[in-house]
């Protein structure tokens, strides 16, 4: 008998725009000691499957047809109170954000003991002994003392371990892990996935691992189910699905994953293309406004030279300077960006890589050191004329496509604004023409100009963001995690677009990312950042094949290997 059996599950969300079918006729099984991956892009319905199994569908969602069997017992028609006892006792949950799944005002001990005593008939001292035991099993050092601490005293990875302990403490048969490592850095991700794998084998647990990350699937799961728009597209042994996908969607999804072991020129075309096609091929740059611009010295070897750059933030402010507490975000780093290259900055969260971008662009003032950009001095007050003249040639593409466009402005105004502010065009007709050209250049039709940002998907918004950045005729483009909020197939298209634009417009890129395979695809040279220091700078291939610094070695060693 299978541990979990889902037969023909349908989940619907009625709204005033009609009924949205989030899950459409999905059947799958999970055996004891097996990890089944549920993979798909945003909106595929993968999390909804997990929520439906747990009976946690958000109102107005409901399950009009289908069956869920847990160990031969049908659970989809149970009353809410019966379902609650199953949820606590037989199905455990691990969510994406470890901070919100723990109660911040209670100690870890209280939370574990309370959960154990609610579901198992044991005394307090026995419950406490079990709790310490569990923390030890999930790899928390010194559990007898740390159990008395509060969630905020644990790091992100440790918190996720506590959440796993919480899910395990009632000895469930099935665990549903919804993006359990998405909020974690790559080194911690590897440890958590290893832990889930160990527990699954040693305790004969069934695990449903919901994720968007093909690398995590390849490393962790036994079988995988690929979902697309609520439907189960393909299901099979993980090795087989990844190495020999049967369905075109799965093939294009896997082709879009940036390989970590080699550099490819362009990502192959994917099945779901969201742009109107790229207009770059037949685009005459020389005669166009975009190709003109001010006289700009392209012969300098280093477009940007950064020396001993420092930046600190006030953590605790005070009227007296000596009482202020600072946090050093950038601790004196040196690097050069050569003309025409793509320089990558990679590091885990909090390493200061985004701060570097914001200091170069002048959004944050620097606290020492020097930055020279094509002969302009960028240091000091951001209002300085020399710095301003230099920064006219620097633009940035942001991480979050949803907050980087002003929702109250039409796309035409968003793209035209840089030209108006900098007085780059003579007439309104010329400006209008350039907006149309730019939108076509980034793969959006000219109809896009009349719309508002909310009418576009994340990837399309990122294209608009690129068009806006190009509207100042920049020579230097900073991309701050430009694809980390996007699905993998959309990411492939945006990365292709950036490469095309770089070649056509002879742009120099500073590419910031936490994602090592993406860095490998995009960059010529890479700097590795950690805690505000630049620990290693090397050519991309050399860095990935022969990392010198021990931290770089760890980082590359922990990166999920996704072999094809």
């Amino acid at each position: 008998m299978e541990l979990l059996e889902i037969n023909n599950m349908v989940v619907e969300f009625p709204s005033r725009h009609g009924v949205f079918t989030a899950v459409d006729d999905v059947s799958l099984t999970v055996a004891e000691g097996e990890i089944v991956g549920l993979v798909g892009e945003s909106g595929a319905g993968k999390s909804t499957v997990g929520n439906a199994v747990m009976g946690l569908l958000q109102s107005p969602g409901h399950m009009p047809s289908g069956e869920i069997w847990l160990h031969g017992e049908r659970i989809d028609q149970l009353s809410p109170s019966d379902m609650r006892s199953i949820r606590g006792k037989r199905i455990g949950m691990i969510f994406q954000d470890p901070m919100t799944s723990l109660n911040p005002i209670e100690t870890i001990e209280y939370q574990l003991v309370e959960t154990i005593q609610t579901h198992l008939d044991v005394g307090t001292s026995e419950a406490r002994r079990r709790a310490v035991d569990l923390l030890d099993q999930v790899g928390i050092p010194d559990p007898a003392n740390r159990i008395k601490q509060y969630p905020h005293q644990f790091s992100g990875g440790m918190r996720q371990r506590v959440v796993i302990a919480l899910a395990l403490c009632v000895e469930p048969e099935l665990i549903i892990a919804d993006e359990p490592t998405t909020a974690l850095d790559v080194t911690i991700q590897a440890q958590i996935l290893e832990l889930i794998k160990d527990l699954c084998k040693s305790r004969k647990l069934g695990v449903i691992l919901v994720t968007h990350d093909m690398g995590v699937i390849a490393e962790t799961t036994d079988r995988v189910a690929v979902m697309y728009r609520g439907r189960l597209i393909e299901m099979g042994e993980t090795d087989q699905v990844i190495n020999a996908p049967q369905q075109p969607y799965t093939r294009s999804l896997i082709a879009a994953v940036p390989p970590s072991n080699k550099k490819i020129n362009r990502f192959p075309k994917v099945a779901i293309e969201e742009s109107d096609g790229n207009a770059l091929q037949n685009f005459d740059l020389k005669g166009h406004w975009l190709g003109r611009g001010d006289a700009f010295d392209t012969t300098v070897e280093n477009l940007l030279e950064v020396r001993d750059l420092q930046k600190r933030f006030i953590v605790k402010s005070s009227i007296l300077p000596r009482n202020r507490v600072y946090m050093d975000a950038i601790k004196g780093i040196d690097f050069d960006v050569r003309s025409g290259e793509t320089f990558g900055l990679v590091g885990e969260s909090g390493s200061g890589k985004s701060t570097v971008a914001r200091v170069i662009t002048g959004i944050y003032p620097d606290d020492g050191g020097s930055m020279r950009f094509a002969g302009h001095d960028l240091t000091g007050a951001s209002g300085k004329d020399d710095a301003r003249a230099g920064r006219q040639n620097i633009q940035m593409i942001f991480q979050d496509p949803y907050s980087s466009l002003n929702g109250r402005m039409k796309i035409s105004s968003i793209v035209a604004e840089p030209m108006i502010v900098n007085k780059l065009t003579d007439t309104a007709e010329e400006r209008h023409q350039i907006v149309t050209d730019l939108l076509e250049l980034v793969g959006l039709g000219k109809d896009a100009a009349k719309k508002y940002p909310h009418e576009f998907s994340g990837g399309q918004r990122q294209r608009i963001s690129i068009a806006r950045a190009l509207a100042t005729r920049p020579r230097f483009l900073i991309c701050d995690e430009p694809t980390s909020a996007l699905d993998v197939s959309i990411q492939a298209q945006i990365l292709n677009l950036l490469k095309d634009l770089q070649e056509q417009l002879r742009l120099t890129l500073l590419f910031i990312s936490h994602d090592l395979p993406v860095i490998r695809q995009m960059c010529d040279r890479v700097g590795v950042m950690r805690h505000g220091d630049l620990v290693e700078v090397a050519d991309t291939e050399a860095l990935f094949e022969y990392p010198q610094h021990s931290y770089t070695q760890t980082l590359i060693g922990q990166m999920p290997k996704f072999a094809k």
Partner: protein
Amino acid sequence: MDSVKRAFDSDLAWSFRHSPVAILSATVALLLILAAVCAPLIAPYNPFDPASLNLMNGFSRPMEPNAFTGDSFLLGTDDQGRDVLSTILYGMRISLFVGFAAVVFAMIIGVVAGLVAAYAGGRVDAIIMRIADVQLTFPSILVAMLIFGIAKGFTPVHLRDQMAIWVLIISIGLSDWVQFARVVRGAALVEKSKEYVEAAILIGRGPIAIIFRHILPNVLSPVLVIATISLALAIIAEATLSFLGVGAPPTRPSLGTLIRIGQGYLFSGEWWILLFPSLTLLLLALSVNLLGDWLRDALNPKLGD
């Protein structure tokens, strides 16, 4: 036409069409506003024209012919023989005008103060918000009375009646700007940290343009909600001040003034002079308030079901 269709299809319009309370309160509020605006056309008498008054008509009961003149009044007359219905219609004009103008005044001060505080931060923020805190320690009626009293002292006697309305507007507006400033500051702080503001800095926009062209349009929804609820409060504040005798003069009565006149006759049996203006005030304030409540829920999907 495109924008009309877009507005009709919007979530706000949908929510309105599916909320009976919103439809009812909007209808009542609109009818009352319309009646006030068209008062010269629909009111049977002009209560501000002394020539049309006949003291003999004083204290006529509603819908009964007057014992001396034989004239009949739908809602009766007050002590000076003014038709209550007409005075309510004309009084509502003053109440609504003062309410709207005071809210607009408070909104302009509050929105600008909130935006500047949020964007500038640091000392400017601290100073503006401390002024707001101090303002909040005085009850708004007290502030209004204070300003009213000072202004009255500086106004020549023959201008006092005309100035009274404007002093009302300024004093109610000044006691009301704090909540606009607080809400706008909070919303603007959120918007300021969004990446589109950084993008605007990068393309060379100055602070003024960023505040008013980029941040302001994104904080307007909460302003709209507060403005609606403030309108009801401002109408009530005006009525309170007038009731206390520091607002609209008896020669140009607002609803509050009418209630003050009426309460003097309540126990001598002339109930209608008090009742009808009070009911009108209640209806007006309640409908605007309910509209504001609906707007707050409709614009904030997080409150949900």
